[in-house]
C-alpha cells in the first residue's frame, strides 16, 4: 500500500490545487483592479495594463511553481508505488501538472483581455 511522508503529501496537494487557487486570486485581483481604476482617482485607467501584466507574470510564476511541485510529486510517486502499480502513486502529480498547464493558459487569457480592451 502507498505511503507518503507528510512533506510529500503537502507537495502533492499544493501541486494539485495550487495553480487553480492562485489563478482564482489573480482573476479577482484583476477584476478589483479594473473596477477600482475606473472609479478611484488614486489609480488611473492607464494603470490597469501594467499592473495586470505584473500580476499575470507573478501568477505564471506561481502556477509554474505549482507545476514544479506536481512534477516532483509525479516523480516521487514512481518510487512510492513499488508494490502498488498502475500509476496510482503518481496520480496527484499527473493531475497537478495538467491543472497547471490549463491555468497557465487561463492566466494568459485573462491578461489578453486587459491588453486588448480599454479598461473603462
Amino acid at each position, binding site marked *: *500500500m*502507498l*505511503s*507518503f511522508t507528510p512533506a510529500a*503529501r503537502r507537495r*502533492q*496537494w499544493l501541486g*494539485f*490545487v495550487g495553480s*487553480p*487557487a492562485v*489563478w*482564482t486570486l489573480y*482573476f*479577482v485581483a*484583476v*477584476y*478589483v483592479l*479594473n*473596477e*477600482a481604476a*475606473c*472609479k*478611484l482617482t488614486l489609480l488611473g485607467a492607464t494603470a*490597469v495594463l501594467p499592473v*495586470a501584466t505584473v500580476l499575470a507574470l507573478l501568477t505564471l510564476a506561481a502556477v509554474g511553481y505549482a507545476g514544479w511541485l506536481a512534477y516532483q510529486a509525479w516523480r516521487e510517486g*514512481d518510487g512510492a*508505488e*513499488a*508494490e*502498488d*502499480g*498502475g*500509476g*496510482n*502513486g*503518481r*496520480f*496527484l502529480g*499527473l*493531475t497537478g501538472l*495538467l*491543472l497547471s498547464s*490549463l*491555468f497557465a*493558459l*487561463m492566466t494568459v*487569457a*485573462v491578461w*489578453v*483581455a*486587459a491588453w*486588448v*480592451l*480599454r*479598461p*473603462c
Partner: protein
Amino acid sequence: MSANPPWPSDGAAAPIEQEIIPPNVQTAHAERPDPETAVALEKRWADPEPGIIGSLKAIQNDAVGGRIMITAFSFFLVAGLLALLMRLQLIKPENTLVGPNTFNGLFTMHGSTMMYLFAVPMIEGLAIVLLPVLLGNREMPFPRLGVFSYFTFLLGGILFFSSYLLRSVPDAGWFAYAPLSGPEFSPGIALDYWLLALGVAEVAAIAAGIEIIIAILRMRAPGMSLGRMPLFAWSMLVTAFSILFAFTPLIIGSLLLELDRKIGSQFFNPNMGGSPVLWQHLFWIFGHPEVYIQFIPASGMMAMVIPVFARRRLIGYPLVVVSMVATGFMSFLLWVHHMFSVGLPQVTLGIFSAASIFIAIPTGVQIFAYVATVLFGRPQWKTAFLFAVGFLVTFVLGGITGVMVGVVPFDWQVHDSYFVVAHLHYVLIGGVVFPIFGTLYYWMPKFTGKLLNERLGKINFWLMFVGFHVAFFPQHISGLMGMPRRVYTYPPGMGWDIFNFISTIGAFILASGVLVFIVNFFYSNRVGDPTGRNPWGADTLEWSLPSPPPNYGFSVLPIIHSRHPLWDQATLSEGSASVRKVVQGLAAWPLRWRAALITSDVEARPVEIFRVSEPSFWPIVCSVGLVTVFGSEIFSLRPVALLGILVVVIGVVGWNWPEPVPTPMEEELAYEEHFDIPVRQHGSRVVARSAMALWLLLLGIALTSFMFSYFFLQVESDVWPQGNLPLPTAEWVAVATVCLLLNGFIVRRAVREIQDGRQLRVRLLLALGFVLETAVLVLLVYDLAQMPFDWRTNAYGSIFFALGGFMLLMLLIGLGINLFTQFWAWRGIYSPERFTPIDNTSLYWLVMIPYWLLVIGILYGSPYLGA
C-alpha cells in the same frame, strides 16, 4: 512499479478489443461475517426503536439520505406542477387562466424550489446514501449532522410553501433582485418568506456539504487512494466545497437584504448610499456556481453509469478529475456574465467573458471522455444508459448556447428573453434532471432491492426526452424573436403563438414521462423480483454488497487495488498483512458500538478506528429551534425568535454532551496494541479537527462576503465615510487586540499542559482565556455603542455595524465553545490521550486573531483611505 504486482493495475492501457467487460462477468463480493457477528452488527447499526419517536431519532445514512431524496423529489413534483400551470397560461396569447401576480408567484416558486429544494438536496441525499458503500466504509462521519440537515431542509421547505396559506407568495423571481425585493417595492412578508425559509434550507445544504467532504477525504476503504476513487466521489468532493463557498455569500446577502427590510439598514438603498448592484453580485457569486454545484455531481453520476453500460473502463479518468476540479474553480469566476447588461467596465466584461467561454474546455473534456467511452465500448441500451445518452445530447446543446451567451454582444441581444430560458433548461434538465433519473434507474436496487421495470423505463425516457425537446427547443426561436421571459401573457400577432403552443404540448409530454416514472417505482416495488447483488455487472464497491445493503455496510472492509475493484480484483480481502489485520480485527471488534475506519487523505492508509455517533433526538431539537428563529422573524416575532435561539443552544449542548464509553479502557488499549491502530471511542480526533477547520473556513467565507460588501460600497461612494461622518478611532479595540493576542498564547499553552497531564493548569488557563475573551467582546460592544451613527444612518453605518456585529457573533460562538470545554475540563474528562475539544478551542481562538485583525483593520483603517 514492480514487474508483477499480485493484482491488476488501474486499467492501464490495453488494446481496445481486450477492454470490453463481458456483461455476465463474475464480480467479487464483500466478505460476509459469521451469522452471529452479522446479527450483532445489524442490531448495533439498525435504527433504534420502531414508531415515530424511533423514526425521528434514526441516523442511519440510508434512512437519512433516502428521506432527503424522497422529500426533494416531492418538491420537484410540486415545482413541476407550477411549471405546467405557467405553460397552460402561455399556451395562447392573452390567456386569462392566471393573472400577472399569480404568474409572478408561479415562476418565483418554480425556480426557487427547483434550485434550492430539489436539485442540491437530491444530490446530497444521494451522496449520503451512497458514499459509505461506494467508498467501502460503514457510515458518514456525522450521522447527526445528516439528521439536522434533513429536518432543517424539510421544515424550511414547508415554511417556504406555507406562504401560499397566507397568500404571501414570493414574487420577485428566484434571484429576488433589489430594489424590487426591498422594503419599498415589496412591503408585505412574501419576500421575507423567500429570504428566511430558503435561508434555512441553505444552512441544511451546507451542513450536509461538511460531512460529505470529510467522508470522502477521510473515510475510504484501505487502498482506495485518490487516484482510485469513484468519479461520483470526486464530483461530490468538488461540489461539497463549492456549496461551502457559494451558499455562504448567498446567506450573507439574504441577511443584508432582510436587515434592510426589517430594521431599516440601507445596504441596497441607492438614496442612502447603498447599491442594488451589490445584491446582484452577492446573489450571482452564489448563483453561477450553483449551476455547477448541480452539474458536476450529475456528471459524476454519469461517469459511473456510462462505463458500466458501455462495458469498458472510462477513457481519460485523470482528465475527467482535472476537468471537474478546474470547472469547480472556474465556476466561481463567471458570475458577472449574468450581469453583462448592468453597465460594467470593458475589461471586467472581457475577463468574465473569457472565463465563461473557457469553462467549455474542462466541461468539454468530460463530455469527450464519456462519448469516447461509449464509442469504444459495447453499449447495452438499458434505461439508465438511455438517460446518459439523453444527458450527453441535451447538455451539449445547452453548452453551445452557453458559449453563445458568454459572448457579450450576443448576451446583450438575448438578455432576459426566452432564449435564456431555453438555454438554462437545456443545461439544468439535460445536465442534471436526466442524470438524476438515470442514476435512479441504475442504483434503485441498492435503495429498494428491486430493479425498476425496463419497459416502463424506456417509455419513461422517451416521453421525457421527446417532451423536453418539444417544450424547450421552440423557446430558442421565440426568444430570438424577442419574447421576454417572466411575462404572464403576450399579444397575438408577434409570431410567438405557435412556439408557445408547441412548448406547452411538450411540457405535458415531459410531465407524463415523470408520471410513468412514479408508476414504475410503485409497480416495480410491488411486483418486481428481488434483484441480486450486482445485476449490471458493475465495477464499484456498492455492488459487492447485497441489495439493499445491510445497515452496517461492510463488515470486513474491502482492500482496494484498482479503480474498478469488482472488475479487476478476484477478492476484496487481499492485501498487506498489516492492513488485513486491521480490517479483520474491525470485523470482529467492537460489537458494542458503531465503529468505522478513518484513513489518510491521499493514499487511504488506515489511521484510526472511531466511534460514530449514536442515534439522538438533539439534532431535531436544533432544527426546530433554527427554523423557529427564521420562521418567527418572517412575522417579526422577536420573543419567539429568542426562544428559538435558546432551543438551538440547548440542542447544541445536548448534541455534544459526551456519551458514556461502552467498552472498558483496558479492552481498548489491548486492541490498540494488538492491531497497531489507535481507537477513539470518544469520537475521532481527525474528524473533529477537520470539522473545526471547515467551520472556520465557513466563517472565513462569510467574513469575506462582508468585506466584499464593505469595499464594494466604499468604491461605489463619492465620500467615505458617507455623509461626512467622523472617522472612527480605535483606542478600545486596540486594548481588545492585546487581550485577544494574549488569549491566543494562553489557549495554545492549555493544549501543551493537557498533553503533559497537568489538569489544574489547563482549567486555570481556560478560565483565564475566558476572562480575556469576554473582555474582547465587551470592549467591542462598548466601542460600537459609542459610535455617533447607527445602521440606519446610511450604507456606511449599515456595513460598519454588520461587519462589527458579525465579529461579535464569532466571539460569542468562541465563548460558548470555551465554556463548554471548560465545563468538561473541570469535570476532569480530558487526558493526555483525549483532549480534542481543548485542541479545537485553541484552534478556534487562534484563527480568530487574523479574522479580528482583518475586521478591525477594515472598520477602523479603511475609512482613512476615503472613497
